[in-house]
């Protein structure tokens, strides 16, 4: 049976995270989840029931969450610190910087309900700064999985990592983007389709809209490449350079501010490689974020199939006119 990316809806990445973590915890008593009143939001209620001694609750105290996680990790525990991405990476930023990264404690920081998953709850609850701030920290891997497979593999890979890692995802069901059995490697992007006109380099929950854009454009005769850039740091620079070398234009897509995220990371690589190419960063601009649910916010900022196709076609038409 052939696999068509995006054709079949999976679970939410949040759910598969919780299932994967429970499986890991059952295999190894040293696996711990540390939560800040976030076991429900983290879909960890079944985990808490199944392995109660392997869940540590610290209450609504994210700074303490991260510091405690660092201490546990120092004593050999395999620690997943689970909290809404917004609070985890903003409230506890200094703990991440000092106690985890600078002190090299292999904590697995799990940012749930990332990006604009919390929708109309507003900007206090949005995490569209997290990639930018964490990219500026030494000694942390940043992973933004797109689908269930990437999430499962990232959570499993984190258990083996001996340095800090941040993994963030949302809570809406995600379509499967990769055939089962796809080999996932941290730091190595996954190409979903190939083409030469436009390269979409997308991450997390915007990979699917980018896929829709690619499908729409294919129908108009464009050929499109789509790369799921699940690891933002270390970035798969080779894939970025290849995309720019083999396609006529590049559009990066992320559920993040256009400042400091995947797009600027790719732009820096291309600039330093002396590669001039029509280039556009699709994301959430520097303004008060519009109120709406996640998909309404995506639509408002053009992070949909039609919106991204428009962005890409405009970019390509600029080349023809130029």
């Amino acid at each position, binding site marked *: 049976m052939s696999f068509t990316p995006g054709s079949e809806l999976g679970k939410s990445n949040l759910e598969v995270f919780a299932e994967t973590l429970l499986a890991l915890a059952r295999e190894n008593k040293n696996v711990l989840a540390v939560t800040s009143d976030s076991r429900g939001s983290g879909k960890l209620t079944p985990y808490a029931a199944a392995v109660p001694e392997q869940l540590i609750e610290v*209450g609504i*105290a994210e700074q303490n969450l991260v510091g*405690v996680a660092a201490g*546990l990790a120092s004593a050999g525990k395999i620690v997943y610190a689970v909290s809404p991405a917004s609070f985890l990476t903003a409230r506890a930023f200094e703990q991440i910087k000092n106690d985890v990264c600078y002190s090299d404690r292999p904590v697995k920081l799990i940012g749930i309900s990332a990006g604009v998953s919390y929708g109309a709850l507003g900007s206090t609850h949005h995490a569209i700064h997290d990639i930018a701030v964490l990219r500026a920290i030494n000694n942390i891997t940043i992973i933004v999985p797109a689908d269930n497979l990437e999430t499962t593999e990232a959570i499993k890979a984190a258990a083996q990592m001996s340095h800090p890692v941040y993994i963030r995802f949302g809570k809406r069901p995600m379509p499967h983007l990769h055939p089962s059995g796809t080999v996932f490697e941290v730091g190595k992007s996954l190409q979903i389709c190939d083409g030469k006109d436009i390269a979409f380099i997308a991450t997390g929950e915007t990979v699917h809209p980018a896929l829709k854009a690619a499908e729409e454009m294919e129908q108009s005769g464009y050929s499109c490449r789509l790369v799921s850039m699940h690891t933002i740091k270390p970035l798969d620079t080779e894939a970025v350079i290849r995309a720019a070398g083999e396609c006529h234009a590049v559009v990066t897509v992320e559920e993040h501010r256009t400042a400091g995220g995947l797009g600027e990371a790719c732009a820096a690589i291309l600039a330093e490689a002396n590669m001039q190419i029509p280039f556009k960063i699709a994301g959430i601009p520097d303004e008060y974020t519009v109120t709406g649910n996640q998909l309404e916010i995506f639509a408002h900022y053009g992070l949909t199939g039609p919106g991204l196709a428009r962005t890409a076609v405009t970019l390509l038409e600029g080349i023809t006119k130029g």
Partner: protein
Amino acid sequence: MIDRELYLKSIQYRIKLLKYIKMAGAGHTGGSLSCVDILNVLYNRILNVTPETFNDPGRDRYIQSKGHSVEALYVVLADHGFFPEEELETFYGYRSIYTGHPTRKVKGIEQNTGGLGHGLAFSVGVALAGRLDHAAYRVFTLLGDGELAEGSNWESLMAAAHYQLDNLCVIVDRNTLQLTGKTEDMCGLEPLAQKLEAFGGELRLVDGHNITALTEMLCKLPFTTGKPSVVIARTIKGKGISFMENNPKWHHGVPNDRQYEQAQQELEARLAEIKS
């Protein structure tokens, strides 16, 4: 009974830490002098850790949350053979591992600290892991009093009490001064004892320069079963050097040549007194 060995060390550590601060032209002089007796007692009488057992999962842990008083920690660790003392001649220097705040690059140091309000959360994590593993080790954390204005400390204290971490001992170096001036003039901490008790600590007060009293108190851990032990060690910032005592100017003041000479003379005189 007077612990003559530690009283001698208490002066020797002061001589050394001033030497390296003078050499580097930088350091947190006042706070190192206020906490050095606590470190003296911990490393020489209480902690079950040596350079040989430093990687042993069962070792006692000392985490210095008030990271700026690193000079006191360096001289005590050197005295214990964690590294050759001469290496401290590079303190503060280009490419030295002996930075102005503790880092794990230096053998004997458990965790990188320096940003305030971080050490206690980490310690709670270590103590929790010990509980989960049924390990016998204890975790000691030294907090500055100024840093208690950081709210994160109180989050961590709540967690320590909630998890009944009686394998954790929190010592507050209560020298009543911080960079700008008196703690009570910045954001008052008093009544500190009541606050620490209210947050679930089993509290004791001690003269933080009284080696005998400190030793006796820290030999009796935990103070009570099922609660973190919390000590307010009443100390004097700049302790041991007449003109540095109780003067916030010496928070990170470095003595000039004349001041350095006077300080060493005062300490040598005290040393001779103890030896006689």
